[in-house]
């Protein structure tokens, strides 16, 4: 029985191997569009354009980046979900996508159900940092300050449910202290407020924080990566103080659910090869990112794990979008 089942599976596999390349062979037929749901100039956009320019060279058809910030990013993603599943439309997902899905029950698509993952592109941790003049010397000091100060410590957050917000609250849960998350539209205004002491500490990506650290405008306390991070040498992890906490933000590519697997495979192979290129690695490193090539399955597993991880934080803290 078992034998015949696997024989059948092998036969099917063989058939699909014959059939699918036929679909992949005449691909790409036309221009491929990578939708980025954040504004031009941001990190998803820059990485998206980097990948797009390399893909153009390798696929022989133009690969262009289209920014669609409408509907807080939902519109652009939805266009890819609903668009033709012929492998000509991709979307750049960010590490914030799983938590957004949890906070928005009315989001018209579900990541794992309505998209096929292609590959993750890169990953970057968040850093907790303070002004150079701050009396807080290390991460433990910050937790001590949060216990002592009425109302706890003041962090910045981006919108509700952004990774900054959830990491801040998570630190609150694990460190058993109060945190107050104050909303900012992006890192620069928050940076101004932490340097002049209006915020106790700032949480942001290595992309933003490390250049400021290098120029002695911020002092890093701890980093969210599971272990020491190559692009932030000497910065202790949050995990050393609060063992439960480790997280990385990431960027990844996804396509419409019914895209032929052979095309997904093909893009996966090409992008993985691109992520091996020295100049690509170097450009990512300049932005504080490490390449994170993965299989489509690995990307799905990552999203699944993060959905569970953020659900816990959101439930404990009662975070919700009103």
């Amino acid at each position, binding site marked *: 029985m078992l034998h015949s089942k696997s024989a059948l599976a092998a036969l099917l596999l063989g058939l699909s191997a014959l059939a699918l390349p036929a679909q992949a062979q005449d691909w790409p037929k036309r*221009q491929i*569009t990578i939708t980025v749901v954040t504004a031009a100039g941001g990190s998803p956009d820059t990485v998206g354009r980097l990948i797009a320019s390399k893909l153009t060279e390798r696929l022989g058809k133009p690969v*262009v*980046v*289209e920014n669609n910030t409408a509907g807080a990013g939902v519109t652009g993603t939805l266009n890819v979900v609903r668009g033709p599943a012929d492998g000509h439309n991709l979307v750049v997902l960010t590490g914030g996508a799983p938590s957004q899905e949890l906070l928005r029950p009315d989001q018209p698509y579900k990541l794992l159900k309505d998209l096929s993952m292609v590959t993750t592109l890169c990953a970057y941790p968040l850093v907790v940092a303070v002004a150079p003049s701050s009396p807080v010397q290390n991460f433990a000091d910050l937790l001590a300050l949060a216990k002592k100060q009425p109302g706890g410590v003041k962090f910045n957050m981006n919108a509700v449910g952004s990774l900054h917000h959830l990491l801040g609250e998570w630190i609150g849960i694990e460190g058993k202290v109060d945190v107050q998350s104050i909303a900012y539209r992006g890192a620069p205004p928050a940076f101004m407020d932490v340097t002049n002491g209006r915020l106790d500490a700032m949480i942001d990506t290595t992309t933003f924080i490390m250049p400021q650290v290098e120029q002695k405008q911020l002092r890093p306390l701890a980093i969210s990566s599971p272990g020491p991070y190559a692009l932030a040498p000497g910065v202790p992890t949050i995990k050393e103080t609060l063992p439960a906490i480790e997280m990385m933000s990431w960027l990844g590519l996804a396509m419409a659910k019914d895209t032929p697997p052979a095309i997904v495979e093909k893009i996966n192979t090409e992008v993985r090869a691109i992520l091996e290129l020295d100049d690509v690695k170097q450009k990512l490193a300049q932005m504080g990112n490490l390449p994170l090539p993965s299989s489509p399955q690995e990307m799905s597993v990552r999203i699944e794990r993060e959905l569970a991880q953020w659900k816990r934080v959101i439930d404990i803290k009662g975070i919700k979008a*009103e």
Partner: protein
Amino acid sequence: MLRIRNPQDFAAGLFFLCVGAFALYGMKDLRLGTAMRMGPAYIPTLVAWGIVACGLIIAARALMVAGPALEKWAVGKLLLICGGTLLFALIIRDLGLFLASVVLVAVVSFGAPDVKWRHTIPFCLAIAGAAVGLFGGLLGLSMRLWPW
């Protein structure tokens, strides 16, 4: 006796009253919050009441101080101009820039008093071609250009 001495301002007052009231209605389910922890509706509600107050003042003054009458509306032209733009929006994604441009220019051209078919048709085609050349060719914007 109360008499509307400034019809234009009176209408403006009513308009702002409606805008304010509509906004207040739209936010009826949102939390107000307190001055320290402002809810999503706190500031917009204040602003909407401000608009209502302005509307009342404008309308009340219109009863006291004389002013201009309401002008007639050029409804046809309004529909042509905004309708042409709307049509462009509806077809650009599926039919591409060229056809959308032809349609927009053809429709809005009827807003001019001295429109003639023999001028308009070549003009439509020429300008749609120029638009495709400029935006699709020279500037290389990533939008659909042709229906196919």
